[in-house]
């Protein structure tokens, strides 16, 4: 990748490299034995918050359990408690008594009288 015509630049950089190496701080292997980073404070409270939320949900579920639920028969309105009667008694006018204006044309109404 580097053609030979770059020897001038290589020499300059090599010299700078030697100077920097002389100034480099000593290798300290103890830096690599640093303790692992402790989890952040926010993350430490996550399990506590989750546990609290579970306790609250459980408490609500237990206090509102099936023991307090009304029975189905009590909850329904008393539809079938009224006394039995005619099915369409309340309809006005009565369906059978209805007379249309054209009823006069029916054969039962017509009486032809021959003089």
């Amino acid at each position, binding site marked *: *990748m*580097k053609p030979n015509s*770059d020897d*001038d*630049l*290589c020499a*300059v*950089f*090599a*010299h*700078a*490299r030697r*100077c*920097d*190496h002389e*100034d*480099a*701080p000593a*290798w300290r*292997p103890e*830096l*690599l*034995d*640093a*303790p*692992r*980073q402790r989890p952040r404070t926010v993350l430490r409270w996550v399990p506590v918050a989750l546990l609290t939320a579970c306790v609250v949900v459980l408490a609500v579920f237990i206090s509102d359990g099936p023991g307090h639920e009304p029975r189905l028969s009590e909850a329904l309105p008393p539809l079938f408690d009224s006394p039995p009667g005619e099915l369409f008694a309340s309809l006005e006018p009565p369906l059978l008594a209805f007379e249309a204006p054209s009823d006069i044309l029916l054969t039962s109404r017509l009486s032809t009288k021959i003089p």
Partner: protein
Amino acid sequence: MERAIADQLEALHPDAFGWALHCCAGDHARAEDVLQNAYLKLAQQRAQHDGRSSFKTWWFGVIRFTAHEEFRRLRYRESLLGRLLQLAGPEHDPRPSPARQLELDERAAELRRCLAQLPARQAEVLHLVFYQDLTLNEAADVMRVSIGSVRQHYERGKARLRTLLQPDSPHEA
């Protein structure tokens, strides 16, 4: 920490410091901080080599990222909000002390001055190729850019650096 990784890190330590120094624009104190923070990331398993690239290119990528984090932190401290929030602390001068400046080799210092005048990507690729002896592909891995982009930065950077290194070339302050 595995023994094999520790051995690799020890072998790469001087070059890693040179790379950190480049990422920190020649500031020794910051380079030491950056390298130490990168080692801490490894020790705390916040950075782990997944084997997709060579250990050296991966490790240099970690150092580069850590240096950028440090740079952003420094920028924040220097911002107005940072000044308001921060308690009065000792000011940090990124330039080397006059005594240190005298100690620095003139040619090495000249190279650093010239590299500082190049665009950051060009300076990075030149450092990785000529100083760290990486290939262009490896440099692209470290810099997280495409090989085509690296090649372009490499060619332009070389031409510009040669011009700047000539004795009669003007230097920006």
